[in-house]
């Protein structure tokens, strides 16, 4: 009883392998799936897929999806869903395009305005969910329809009848904030690398990869930040608690409602982020932007180990989940499979990746 050392070896513990320790973390569970998918495509796909440009090519959609998926994952860990993020991408994209094109605001105003705008809808979603006690599934579903519909109405209003609003690229050209949210980063570096022959070039000498698409950089930053929040801050603890058991968390003094509303705002802001990036990249927006992205974001989060019932998951898992999903979707086009079979392969690959993942984790951690 007087022994104060906590590090005394407990005879009730077996030694644990390093692998087992790693695989226990939900963050790392999805890695096995990534490896499997890479191996699959290394065998079946055109070698162009694993060149630098091929990598950027599949990472770009993965990053766009991933930014949404990380928001969705945090919200799912907190015990709620947001089905309106896909529509939110369209709607905040429209808002952003109207700000820049129709109203001619500079980015320093348009971007914060878009985030605030999206955040307000997120807060609205959250408030309705909290105060009605209804499942967030049904509340945000209503907003899926409402925001999608408003995007259509707004587009027609802004363009005088079309469902496509163009001219964003011209409107933001030369704005000092533009390079933060569009195009490729480190272009100078890549150009000199290309000159030095370290990056592949096209026949005409321009580098095949002009730089790192900004969304990839944002994606990594957001994943790191979300992981930091989840694992290293009190807020992270509250998110897990709110999702694990709402009543128990509230009874222990966690401000559950505040946590949930903040998560809805955060998710909406992730959607706004993706909207800004894609609208600036594409230079236009239309009424179908972000269609079904809510669904893909949830898929990525679940592949990455989040539980639909809340209270368990990780941002890094969602990060890898988005990469798996993005890699499979784009990767299949690098293979010789007939497009008719595309969905069959997509489904099969997802299933195999997740099953494999699961099997590896069970084996390594010794669960039965």
């Amino acid at each position, binding site marked *: 009883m007087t022994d104060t050392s906590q590090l005394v070896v407990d005879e009730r513990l077996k030694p644990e392998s390093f692998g087992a320790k790693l695989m226990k973390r939900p963050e790392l569970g999805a890695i096995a799936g990534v490896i499997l998918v890479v191996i699959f495509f290394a065998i079946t796909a*055109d070698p*162009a*897929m694993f*060149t630098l*440009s*091929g990598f950027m*090519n*599949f990472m*770009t*959609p993965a990053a*766009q999806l991933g930014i949404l998926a990380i928001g969705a994952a945090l919200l799912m860990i907190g015990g709620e869903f947001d089905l309106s993020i896909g529509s939110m991408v369209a709607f905040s994209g429209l808002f952003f395009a109207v700000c820049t094109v129709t109203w001619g605001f500079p980015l320093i105003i348009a971007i914060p305005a878009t985030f605030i705008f999206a955040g307000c809808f997120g807060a609205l979603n959250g408030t309705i969910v909290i105060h009605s006690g209804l499942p967030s599934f049904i509340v945000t579903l209503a907003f899926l329809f409402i925001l999608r519909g408003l*995007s*259509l109405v707004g587009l027609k209003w802004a363009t005088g*009848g*079309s*469902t*496509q609003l*163009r*001219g*964003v*690229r011209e409107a933001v050209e030369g704005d000092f904030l533009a390079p933060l949210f569009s195009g490729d980063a480190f272009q100078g570096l890549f150009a000199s690398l290309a000159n030095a022959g370290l990056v592949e070039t*096209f*026949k*005409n000498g*321009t580098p*095949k990869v002009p730089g790192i698409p900004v969304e990839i950089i944002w994606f990594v930053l957001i994943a790191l930040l979300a992981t930091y929040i989840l694992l290293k801050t009190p807020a992270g603890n509250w998110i897990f608690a709110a999702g694990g058991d709402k009543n128990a968390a509230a009874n222990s003094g966690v401000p559950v409602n505040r946590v949930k509303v903040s998560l809805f705002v955060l998710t909406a802001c992730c959607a706004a982020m993706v909207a800004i990036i*894609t609208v600036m*990249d*594409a*230079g*236009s927006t*239309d*009424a*179908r*932007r972000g*269609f*079904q992205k809510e669904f893909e974001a949830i898929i990525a989060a679940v592949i990455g180990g989040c539980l639909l019932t809340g209270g368990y998951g990780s941002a890094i898992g969602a990060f890898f989940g988005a990469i798996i999903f993005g890699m499979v*979707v*784009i990767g299949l*086009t*690098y293979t*010789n499979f007939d*497009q*008719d079979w*595309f969905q069959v392969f997509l489904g099969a690959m997802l299933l195999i990746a997740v099953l494999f993942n699961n099997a590896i984790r069970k084996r390594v951690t010794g669960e039965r």
Partner: protein
Amino acid sequence: ADIIVVAHGQANDPFWSVVKNGVEKAAEHTGANVEFRAPETFDMVAMSQLIDAAVNQEPDGLAVSIPDADALGPSIERAVAAGIPVISINSGSDVSKSLGALLHVGQDEFDAGKAAGEKLAELGGTKGICVNQEVGNVALDLRCEGFAEGFGNEITVLPTTNDPTEIESKVRAALDSDPDIDTVMALGASTAGEPSVAAAKASGRDVLVASFDLSAPFLQSIVDGDAAFAIDQQQFLQGYMAVNFLALNAEYGLMPGGNVPSGPNLITAEKAGQVIDLSAQGIR
């Protein structure tokens, strides 16, 4: 030769499956190695990424549809910059040249809609609905806009999903609640056209029904007099010609000097009978 086709419509879309059949036929005839790719839904961001993926493989020819020149422009220009011959198909005739495509095979959706609208107005239509099973798909929206312009009279767009039962009920509801509606323009024969015919019949009214694209049952309705006409852009050609041109270009450096219009082509009762079988095989 390696040729890649990137389209905005999916392989399971009745319209685009015919394009794909054309592509395959051309591959068979030319011996080229051809791949057809499309995003999971009408998604311009995803489509530009698919074009990028295609460019990375440095094929000997690239055929793309261009429903949104802003969104797809940079990717197409990158392909051109990389020295890949590009042909645009289906949509984008107006921007094809400026983006550096060699030529355009297809028909403008807006023009097709306009032609259909004019024909329906000529047949006596006064108030119409445009059944749009995928609102926000710019290609389909353009068809409606063209229809409105050609028709001249009042039209409303009826947004629906892909579900035939729902479309039938909604068209029925629209007809029941406004006795003045006498024209129904469907944007796809099998998804929207057939249920519209059924709804028109069930309403017991005399309604002009027309549709974009073809399907065997819809053509049968035309023959039977239940529908007015279908508007066909012979999309088989869009796939077939584009691949053929690109293959010839890769082999001999040949390329026609101008755009190839593949439609529009109104299929009325006289012609409908002949194309039913071809339609059932996915060629018309």
